[in-house]
């Protein structure tokens, strides 16, 4: 069951839109904030709360890059692999993450701490390569700074 807090947050967001359906993406993000990802059960419950078919909500959930329909680790690493980061060596950062955490794009560490995903251009191109760990942006990455960043994550 979606707990009271989640339901309250979702209802608050729905007030910004003239139709409940418009708040469905925000609702999925709220579920994720609490549960890391959107399970089949949660999807059905959000659909019921908003009043749209679960199949339609599934169509929305699977369209957007940042809605996770599979379990993810405690920290999601969003590594920008778009062109400015490619030119400045994001491939080395990806290799560095693989070496250190033994995960590549789409994979989660065995201890469930990290999931690595590719990210469309983060709009931080003057400080490429860039990545986000959770909600925190890290920039001007080097294999050395990567070590420090990953060590600093709880």
């Amino acid at each position, binding site marked *: 069951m979606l707990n009271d807090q989640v339901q309250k947050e979702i209802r608050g967001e729905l007030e910004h839109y003239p139709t409940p359906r418009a708040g469905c993406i925000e609702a999925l993000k709220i579920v994720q904030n609490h549960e890391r990802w959107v399970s089949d059960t949660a999807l059905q419950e959000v659909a019921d709360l908003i009043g749209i078919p679960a199949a339609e909500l599934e169509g929305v959930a699977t369209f*957007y890059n940042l809605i996770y329909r599979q379990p993810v680790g405690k920290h999601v690493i969003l590594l920008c692999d778009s*062109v400015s980061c490619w030119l*400045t060596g994001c491939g080395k950062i990806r290799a560095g993450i693989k070496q250190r955490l033994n995960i590549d794009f789409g994979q989660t560490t065995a201890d469930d701490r990290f999931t690595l995903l590719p990210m*469309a251009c983060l*709009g931080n191109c*003057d400080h490429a390569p860039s990545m986000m760990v959770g909600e925190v*942006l890290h920039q001007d990455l080097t294999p050395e700074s990567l070590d420090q960043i990953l060590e600093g994550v709880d």
Partner: protein
Amino acid sequence: MERPLTKNIDAGREPLGLKDYEAAGGYQAVRKVLQEMTPEEVTAAVKKSDLRGRGGAGFPTGLKWSFVPMGDDAPRPKYLVCNADEMEPGTFKDRVLLEGDPHQMVEAMIVAGYAMGADVGYIFLRWAYRLANQRLLAAIAEANAAGYLGDNILDSGYSFKLHVHTSAGRYICGEETALLNSLEGKRAIPRAKPPFPQISGLWGKPTIVQNVETLCNVPHIINRGADWFKSISRSAEGGTKLYGVSGRAKNPGCWELPMGTPIREIIDEYAGGMQDGLKLRGLLPGGASTDFLVEEHFDTPMDYASIAAAGSRMGTGTMILLDDGNCPVGMVLNMMEFFARESCGWCTPCREGLPWVEKILQAIEDGNGCAEDLDRLSAHARDLGHGNTFCALAPGAMEPLQSSLKYFREDFQSHITNKRCPWS
């Protein structure tokens, strides 16, 4: 040199709060339009300035606004949507404005909202801009408390509510009709045009979708006039432009400069030239979906007409530099991976064509290409071009491909002949 859009921005400190923003002349444009101008006069002032959309397409802003039904019998509510989904690879200019001066964004929404008679505004913000989200919400709360937003603003009778909508990631959301579908809680696939959003947009109501930088110009045009706006540029096109440089320059960054500042000046004087030991081979002038320009074009002024005459598009005005230590085939492959991944899948040429292009390029890059591949790539550049797809995503993707085949053809050929990438 005047920098109206970034004059309040200092990356070393927090953005101006309401009081400091007002002390710097902020919200004067809101007072002026609400107290002295009719909505039609605001649109006329923007039209006179010849302001063109800064999101990439360069459509005349005042003209766009003039298509919105006005008067008492116009459909309501009307919506103003700010496209802050900045996801064009290599583009980071709107982030500067959103993080650096959020009240300017709020003021711009109110002024533009008044011009079209909007009841509700949405800032459609990409999720990754967490700091911008936080700062916009703080600015909106301050503006609400001060009576610049909400019901009966400054006793003018005009009411306007403003919300921030954070997206869940997808490049196609930058396409204005796909953005509207996303705001309605649907898959972000583009809509057929016509009807244009100005007539039937969000929930079928009159809607304007406008880029961050475009909107931020509006309060300054209202305060200082069209003649001033045209006078601060170095080109027939008025105003300033936020230009950016990324890639392996010494000092990549974003600077507000007069419209029409030449490419070479931006790279050499502001970005500090290339990093030691690297040579500039070419560049994409305004994001990943613009055609390459090369040495012979570097003295071209960065404005819509001049860059178009050179065979590309100014796009977002944030250029991406290709140096001689990076492989042009690899660079184009990277962009085609991006476009193939981000295609919404709605129309067949884009959904099927982009992955095919990506696979051909991957084969060439891996040393498995054949002589016919270059013709196949050229055929795709034509077949996925304007008029053959539902929206501009695939035609945009074909711009760097077709121009790389023209300017870096010997690199493609050497991959095929020698069966390896010379840079790997």
